């Protein structure tokens, strides 16, 4: 019977322990103090997230396994930093939003902490059982958060659609997982890799089930990353959810999906790369093309950003599809995926923060109501332009660097047509991003509502951080490139890669 060294385990799981304890403390404090409006609950949540964020940096370079199935390696460290950082920004923008729209502030903050925990768990699982449970934790927490505004029909509709899609896709994903389990007789990713790489075990037609298993599992992973055709929930859920939650779905939950893709495919099935890479290329092309084309006709800002984020998932997937194991340069696809995720975090969160600030002031998320925004909120409009530049991939912004990395990886892997399709798609996307810019700058504002838009300091801080991040990656990407490369280094430690 395996022995557990508890002191060491608690240290290895430091950020997760902090998040769990913090979430429980927030719940209890909320229960005892019954003060939904004060600064106490957001303060506690911020301390928890900040602590977990800072602690996450101390694990860089480690390669350990906690409790038999939680990998404490660089990939996990990367996603720990990404997840906690995302949630800090989300927290900053949700304080005002939650205060004005919900009576359950304490529960909201504790769920925010748990959803962060879920993202980390998903990224770190090296066992299908833990992976599935973490996936469900992430999903269920997200369903609840999407339906948080219980008195709004749109929020309810979003939650029920998200739930139905999610339940089906996770069921299909389980089919895929069960195929791998049946072949390997074990749920550990390492054992699955060993089964398929050992010629003595790998008998007969066992190989033939890998491709179906990959496709079936992609239904679940693609649901989280909103890959076409598993993206249909995204526009409705994004539109109906409380906007801070939408921001989280588009960044945190999507990052978790990519973490799983990287972890499962590269740890368990590296020898079948020819198969899954081809599947991923197809998904990538479909996703970015459809996302961009449908985004062209949107009139609602949240739906526009939803389709935009579908398209972005297509670009990110390109990096994984173009991954070449022998390539150790910085244009290795995995580093591209990770770098793109960081760039996307700042950019997309920034765009959502601007949308939230404007929504809080005007009560509208319709693109038509952005007319004349520059006169009412010049800073907000300016920041939104930078974020749109970045989403479209125009220098000197983070989006440009991210796209450079994944397109470069595609060219390195001699997937020239994939890179060309990516570029064409980027050009298409400029059209709808700049349609909004045109509204903001060149259309006359409606007669009433000339007063300037005000937003709380916390939101201004979050906006500034996103803006600085977006520009910094664009101008001086080196530290972020380093971080992405550190995250990639877990590959070198894989036994069967």
């Amino acid at each position: 019977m395996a022995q557990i060294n508890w002191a060491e385990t608690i240290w290895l799981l430091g950020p997760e322990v902090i998040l769990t304890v913090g979430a429980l403390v927030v719940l209890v404090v909320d229960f005892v103090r019954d003060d939904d409006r004060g600064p106490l609950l957001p303060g506690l949540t911020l301390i928890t997230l900040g602590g977990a964020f800072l602690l996450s940096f101390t694990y860089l370079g480690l390669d350990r396994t906690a409790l038999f199935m939680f990998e404490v390696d660089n990939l996990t460290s990367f996603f720990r930093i990404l997840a906690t950082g995302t949630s800090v920004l989300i927290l900053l923008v949700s304080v005002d939003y939650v205060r004005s729209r919900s009576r359950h502030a304490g529960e909201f903050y504790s769920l925010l902490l748990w959803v962060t925990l879920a993202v980390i768990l998903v990224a770190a699982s090296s066992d299908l059982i833990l992976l599935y449970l973490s996936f469900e934790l992430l999903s269920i927490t997200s369903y609840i958060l999407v339906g948080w505004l219980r008195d709004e029909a749109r929020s309810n509709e979003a939650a029920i659609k998200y739930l139905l899609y999610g339940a089906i896709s996770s069921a299909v994903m389980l089919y895929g997982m069960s195929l791998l389990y049946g072949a390997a007789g074990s749920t550990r990713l390492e054992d699955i890799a060993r089964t398929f790489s050992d010629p003595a075990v790998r008998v007969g037609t066992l190989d033939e089930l890998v491709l179906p298993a990959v496709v079936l599992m992609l239904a679940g992973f693609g649901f989280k990353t909103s890959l076409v055709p598993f993206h249909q929930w995204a526009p409705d859920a994004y539109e109906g959810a409380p906007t801070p939650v939408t921001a989280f779905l588009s960044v945190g939950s999507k990052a978790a999906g990519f973490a799983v893709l990287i972890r499962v495919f590269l740890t368990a099935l590296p020898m079948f790369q020819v198969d899954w890479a081809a599947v991923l290329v197809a998904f990538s092309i479909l996703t970015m093309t459809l996302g961009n084309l449908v985004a062209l006709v949107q009139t609602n800002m949240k739906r526009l950003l939803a389709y935009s984020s579908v398209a972005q998932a297509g670009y990110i997937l390109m990096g994984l599809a173009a991954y070449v194991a022998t390539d150790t340069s910085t244009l290795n696809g995995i580093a591209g995926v990770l770098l793109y995720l960081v760039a996307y975090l700042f950019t997309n969160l920034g765009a959502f923060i601007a949308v939230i600030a404007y929504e809080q002031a005007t009560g509208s998320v319709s693109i038509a109501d952005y007319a004349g925004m520059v006169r009412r909120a010049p800073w907000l409009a300016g920041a939104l332009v930078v974020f749109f530049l970045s989403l479209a991939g125009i220098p000197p912004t983070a989006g440009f660097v991210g796209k450079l990395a994944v397109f470069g990886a595609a060219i390195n892997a001699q997937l020239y047509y994939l890179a060309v399709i990516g570029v064409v798609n980027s050009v298409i996307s400029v059209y709808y991003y700049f349609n909004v810019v045109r509204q903001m700058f060149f259309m006359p504002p409606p007669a009433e509502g000339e007063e300037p838009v005000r937003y709380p300091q916390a939101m201004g801080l979050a906006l500034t951080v996103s803006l600085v991040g977006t520009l910094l990656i664009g101008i001086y990407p080196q530290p972020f490139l380093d971080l992405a490369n550190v995250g990639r280094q877990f590959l070198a430690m894989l036994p069967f890669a």
Partner: protein
Amino acid sequence: MTAEQVVFVLAAVVTLGSALGMVTTRSVFVGALWMIAVFGGVAALFILLGAGFLGIVQILVYIGAIAVLILFAIMLTPRVMGDPNAPRYNRQWPLVAVMASALASLLVALVLRTDWPLAQEGAPTITGFAVELGKGFMTTYILPFEVASVLLLVALIGAIVIAREE
């Protein structure tokens, strides 16, 4: 056929037939009853596989608690109870049928074609199954166990926030 195979076929027929009954019935209440039969069939399969403990827990938790709550919720919802003339299928059923049969034939083909590795002689026996299960939860599988408890807590909080009367 051995006795075991006969029991297996019976359990499988009950499970699949009830599942079919569940999705084709017009009444939500009757559908829930068919689902209970599905749970029973699955419990029988568990027992047949030597996991008697899991089988009984399946009955206790799914039939005894979850399904009762589902029936409770259905009986409390007059609009669900009150429309016996609701259409049985929506317009998309042919599409769904095609997709479902495609998935089914894929899985069946895979199961039949693949040379599955079979359990060796001397594989873990089922005596003391519950004991091993309990030990597993406290050692190798402690992390999934804890994650499951967090998941249930989150679901509980969510249910209260979303459903509670203000």
